């Protein structure tokens, strides 16, 4: 890329690609054509902008260029044009007036319908994630593949498969009506949150965090928040991710090792991000019944607001976990609640709750469960049982930094055992 204009062109594309694609899909009703001409428009920009300068309305320029290329393409390929014409007629039959042609002005923001298409329940969950990153975050197939540590060919196949289903089963590009929205929005939020968790606590591979994915998820949630400002769970999700991500610098030690919440240098937490998250928690929880993301964001906020673990508002955190369990019972939430109870009432009380969960199939093989038990047993001075539980946790851990951390805990535990034996 040429010096001088390079970075600004990159920035424009990063932000505009999803918008451009969504507007083209809305205009032509076809994802393949939209992707093709969006890429051509961006290539044209790469040729013209370095010499002619970035136009005053880059988005409008890209849209106009892409639309011309689409019209050319349809002139050349009559059969394709006929197929799209049928699509248009059908789309008009399906809903109220089709998208207006905005001419040369501002690029219209049609990304919401693309969010719902990419997260459509008729697509496999892994394809929804891949497609959302490709179409809305504007990542290349190679970038998506790298983020998931998959061969590019595998990811390309996944994206092709998803687009084929959209085309052939005719998954529509539309925003669900008010009556459908409560059923469909959680699917969109789930896609974004799974991108975040994938990036935040990489479940496989050598790196504990892949920051780019967490940041992509936050960027996607910001877009969605602008598109759906009244949906409180969107605020909750964005708030939750910011409040967790605010701690990321303190989460990894000097040697790349995992640092637990209790041991983190809270001075390294991102205060601006926490403040933004706190405001979103308020938006998420006022004006209606609490939602899953709003409550989880509130719990994250209580951690972020505390000076240390000892002065954390554990009674309030336990109360919020009770709300969460009532909304959506889950053994993982029950596990987190048990840990909070241990902080409020002592390790004995927490351990009793954990033992009640011992037969939950979903907690078998779940490293945080074994670790929580080990920690409580260790605090109770039951070192032999604690060491066994740490070994179990090491067995169940998915990443190398997690295992390294757990091995250190096990060594501490074994030291205590030897001292007790002496």
């Amino acid at each position: 890329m040429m010096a001088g204009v390079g970075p600004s062109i990159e920035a424009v594309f990063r932000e505009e690609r999803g918008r451009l694609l969504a507007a083209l899909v809305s205009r032509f009703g076809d994802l393949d054509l939209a992707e093709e001409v969006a890429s051509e428009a961006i290539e044209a920009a790469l040729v013209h902008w370095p010499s002619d300068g970035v136009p005053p309305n880059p988005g409008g320029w890209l849209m106009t260029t892409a639309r011309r290329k689409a019209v050319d393409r349809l002139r050349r390929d009559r059969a394709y044009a006929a197929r799209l014409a049928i699509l248009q007629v059908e789309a008009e039959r399906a809903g109220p007036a089709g998208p207006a042609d905005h001419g040369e002005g501002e690029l219209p923001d049609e990304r919401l319908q693309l969010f719902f298409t990419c997260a459509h329940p008729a697509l496999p969950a892994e394809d929804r994630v891949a497609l959302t990153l490709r179409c809305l975050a504007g990542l290349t197939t190679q970038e998506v593949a790298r983020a998931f540590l998959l061969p590019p060919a595998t990811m390309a196949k996944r994206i092709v498969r998803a687009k084929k289903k959209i085309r052939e089963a005719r998954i529509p590009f539309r925003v669900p009506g008010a009556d459908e929205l409560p059923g469909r929005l959680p699917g969109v939020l789930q896609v974004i949150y799974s991108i975040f968790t994938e990036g935040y606590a990489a479940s496989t591979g050598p790196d504990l965090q892949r920051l780019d994915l967490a940041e992509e998820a936050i960027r996607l949630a910001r877009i969605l928040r602008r598109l759906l400002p009244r949906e409180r769970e969107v605020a909750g999700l964005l708030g939750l991710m910011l409040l967790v991500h605010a701690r990321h610098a303190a989460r990894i030690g000097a040697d790349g090792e995992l640092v637990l919440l209790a041991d983190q240098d809270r001075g390294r937490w991102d205060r601006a991000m926490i403040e933004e998250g706190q405001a979103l928690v308020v938006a998420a929880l006022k004006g209606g019944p609490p939602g899953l993301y709003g409550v989880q964001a509130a719990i994250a906020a209580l951690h972020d607001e505390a000076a240390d673990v000892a002065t954390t508002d554990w009674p309030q955190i336990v109360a919020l976990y009770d709300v969460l369990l009532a909304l959506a019972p889950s053994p993982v939430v029950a596990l987190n609640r048990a840990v909070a109870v241990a902080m409020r009432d002592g390790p004995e009380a927490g351990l009793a709750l954990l033992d009640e969960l011992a037969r939950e199939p979903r907690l078998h093989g779940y490293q945080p469960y074994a670790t929580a038990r080990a920690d409580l047993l260790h605090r109770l001075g039951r070192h032999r049982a604690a060491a066994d539980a740490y070994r179990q946790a090491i067995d169940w851990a998915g990443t190398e930094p997690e295992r390294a951390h757990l091995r250190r805990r096990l060594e501490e535990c074994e030291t205590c055992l030897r001292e007790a034996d002496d």
Partner: protein
Amino acid sequence: MKYMLLINSLGIDGEAGETSFEEWVAYDKSVRDAGVFVAGESLADLTTATTVRVSATGERTVTDGPFAETREILGGFYVIDVPDLDAALDWAARCPGARAGNVVVRPVAQFD
């Protein structure tokens, strides 16, 4: 665009919701009244089914069944013409068969 709704009931051991004849009549009427009906039949009991196979040498084998080796039994179908998958899924969800078993929605292939 045409979609086929394949209405499956669960085998004898399946936990099925209750549906009444009146519900099916009402559903059928709504499909026709909405103008989306292309075709549709309900199938006679599985015990009346017969299977035909023709071998590579052209030999015909006729067997009784199939019987409920499979948990899902195709009990009927509709072909509807609607704008997109979401509309087809809505019709599938309203079908009494979706409560008594499941409804598989398959786009009809287009060769153009």
